[in-house]
């Protein structure tokens, strides 16, 4: 059973995710927002215990990343182009950039997904004031 305000909470969180993804998926800028909203979405389901909420948040993030990762191509290619790679610029343009553009998504996607459980734990710890950070 969902708490009375849970439906609105869920709807608002999903709207924020949709708004974040509406212009494509930018791994560098969007992941933190998606993690926050995934936890919010899982929290809306009051009948789930902590383990189930974490599993739901992770499954949601995994599904979103899988579905949206193709739209991350321009952002990843921009990251590659901004790198200062060894050798003269012509080598960078002709060899490194095309090579990295084809490899980077294959590296980035599993790396991103592998980091999610720890990042969710971090968000939960922060929300429970379990981090001591001097501002």
């Amino acid at each position: 059973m969902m708490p009375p305000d849970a439906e609105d909470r869920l709807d608002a969180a999903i709207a924020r995710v949709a708004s974040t993804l509406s212009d494509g998926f930018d791994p560098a800028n969007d992941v933190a927002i998606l993690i926050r909203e995934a936890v919010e979405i899982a929290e809306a389901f009051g009948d789930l215990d902590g383990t189930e909420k974490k599993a739901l948040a992770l499954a949601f993030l995994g599904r979103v990343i899988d579905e949206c990762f193709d739209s991350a191509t321009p952002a990843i290619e921009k990251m590659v182009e901004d790198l200062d790679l060894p050798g003269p610029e012509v080598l960078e343009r002709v060899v490194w950039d095309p090579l990295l553009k084809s490899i980077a998504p294959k590296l980035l996607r599993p790396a991103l997904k592998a980091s999610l459980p720890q990042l969710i734990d971090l968000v939960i710890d922060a929300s429970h004031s379990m981090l001591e950070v001097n501002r």
Partner: protein
Amino acid sequence: MIEFAPPPSDVKIIELPNRTAPATTRIARPETLRLRSRLNDVMARLHAKLDDLGEDQAVADQLDPKATRMACAAFKLEDLEDSDDAA
């Protein structure tokens, strides 16, 4: 050569499971099914929201100042008014 006698008719022959048979299908736990259903619900809502935003984006593109300038360059309001009169 030793010959085995056929089993007596009252002996129940136990058939051993075939080890080469494919593994049985995993049965999802009720908790897993519940979570999967929630996830599918959330994803369906997200897809619906993205579709709505897609329509909004199309409207926003029409209201884009650059598109307005292009429309102004392509058509003169007076011309359109005249064509209405002609119709």
